[in-house]
């Protein structure tokens, strides 16, 4: 689905992504882990067109998408969430969701003046869909709340909700779990699995919660210092010495799991 080839992203003299190459299989849920500052988010941003790569190529379904702007990629079916929530703060949560789908006829000026009927129908459908998503995320009571005034975790949920408004091909999730209640995170995990199975979405998931990664992801890619350190199933990764040293550490709890 996505092939990243020798990607570099430099900030001044600092090489945040330093020759990363990886492949994401269609229909997989790929986990992306690595220590803080490994370049995971930067990699996402380059793939999603927010940042221009210094060099290297990104291919999606055989097409070169390097440097395409994010809105073009969205219409090609590539969606992403932000590690630091980017909600539309002055809009209600429902509006945050309703604005997502592309190609709404009401987004053309002419129609807003002379195509009211069609817009009204579309809006009704969108609204129903948005409410469905909100309900799924257990935040239906926030539908009419301004997105700027919800809790940190709720903002992360809203981020996720946006990706559920359209039929995506591939979804990049940047730490959706950080700050989300673990019980709810489990439900979200279920949803990801379901979207993956039923609708065939491909997912790339950045997460620091190994339980979550373990439940969803195969394969798992571990990055460090801007490069891919290891690829494999989670148990394989967990057994990798380099990964342990750079990322997992030998903390009490992890030690148990590594041993297991």
């Amino acid at each position, binding site marked *: 689905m996505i092939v990243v080839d020798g990607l570099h992203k430099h900030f001044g003299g600092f090489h945040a992504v330093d020759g990363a190459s990886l492949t994401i299989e269609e229909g997989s849920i790929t986990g992306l882990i690595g220590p*803080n500052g490994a370049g995971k988010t930067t990699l996402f941003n380059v793939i999603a067109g927010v940042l221009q790569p210094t060099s290297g190529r990104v291919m999606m379904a055989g097409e070169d998408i390097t440097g395409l702007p994010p809105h073009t990629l969205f219409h090609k079916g590539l969606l992403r969430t932000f590690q630091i929530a980017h909600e539309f703060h002055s809009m209600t949560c429902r509006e945050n969701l309703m604005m997502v789908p592309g190609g709404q006829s009401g987004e053309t000026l002419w129609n807003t003046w002379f195509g009211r009927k069609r817009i009204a129908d579309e809006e009704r459908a969108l609204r129903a869909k948005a409410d469905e998503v909100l309900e799924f995320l257990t935040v239906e009571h926030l539908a009419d709340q301004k997105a700027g005034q919800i809790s940190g975790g*709720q903002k992360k949920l809203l981020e996720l909700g946006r990706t559920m408004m359209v039929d995506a091909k591939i979804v990049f999730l940047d730490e959706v779990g950080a700050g989300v209640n673990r019980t709810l*995170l489990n439900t979200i995990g279920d949803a990801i699995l379901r979207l993956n199975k039923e609708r065939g979405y491909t997912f790339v998931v950045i997460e*620091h919660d190994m339980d979550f990664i373990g439940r969803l992801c195969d394969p798992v890619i571990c990055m460090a210092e801007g490069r891919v350190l290891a690829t494999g199933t989670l148990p394989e990764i967990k057994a990798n010495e380099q990964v342990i040293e750079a990322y997992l550490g030998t903390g009490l709890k992890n030690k148990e799991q590594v041993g297991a």
Partner: protein
Amino acid sequence: MSDPYGDRGNKDLSVGNPKGQGSIMPKASGKTHASPGGPFLIGDTMTGGYGKGPDILHGCTISVDKGEIAVIVGPNGAGKSTAMKAVFGMLDVRSGSVKLDGEDITGLSPQARVSKGMGFVPQTSNIFTSMTVEENLEMGAFIRRDDYRDTIAQIYDLFPILKDKRYQAAGELSGGQRQQVAVGRALMTKPKVLMLDEPTAGVSPIVMDELFDRIIEVARTGIPILMVEQNARQALEIADKGYVLVQGANAFTGTGKELLADPEVRKSFLGG
């Protein structure tokens, strides 16, 4: 190109510079009065909300004593952060009170609480993005008059990556690195009580372990620690006291072990 880390994600910042504009409504500092007894820090049956909005907290109580670690868990939007902010005086407590070390400080402004020895790491925008890592730490020591260089050294020992990046603007750090700066900044105050809102969100396991170790260490020196966590199981393991907040009210209270053992708590709040 715009900065994907920017808090607003907006290239059009307009005539003015909305960046950094706070949300705390400044208020004149009121009086304190002695109110001996009770735990070291307690937010007692607090009720309150944002601005003129509805109540978010409904008679919620949280407290922590010397040498203790108290952990607050709960679903998203339960009011955990709100409770922390209320304890810190960042929003109006409409009824109830906040006491610190035998003194009623309900009327104090946040700055005044800082000088009383309270330290706080908020959940979001908890670093000075345009300042270097080292300057962030120095700002943490703003109220200190003594030599704080050795404290900085300690922080660098704790988070080695920060030493490498000491002259880099904190806004250019990765999510987890920012979190480390934020905690480091709070530790710089040498506070009498430390409040952390999800300090481990987004940090890698290795750093999380060290962070928890360090928190225990700090607590052992006698500084009470009040912390909100979503990595609840690890947190409750080290907690002396745990609170489960639901819809702005205390739902369960107990020691960390008790809560971990409670099947209902596990199922509903700790992810099974």
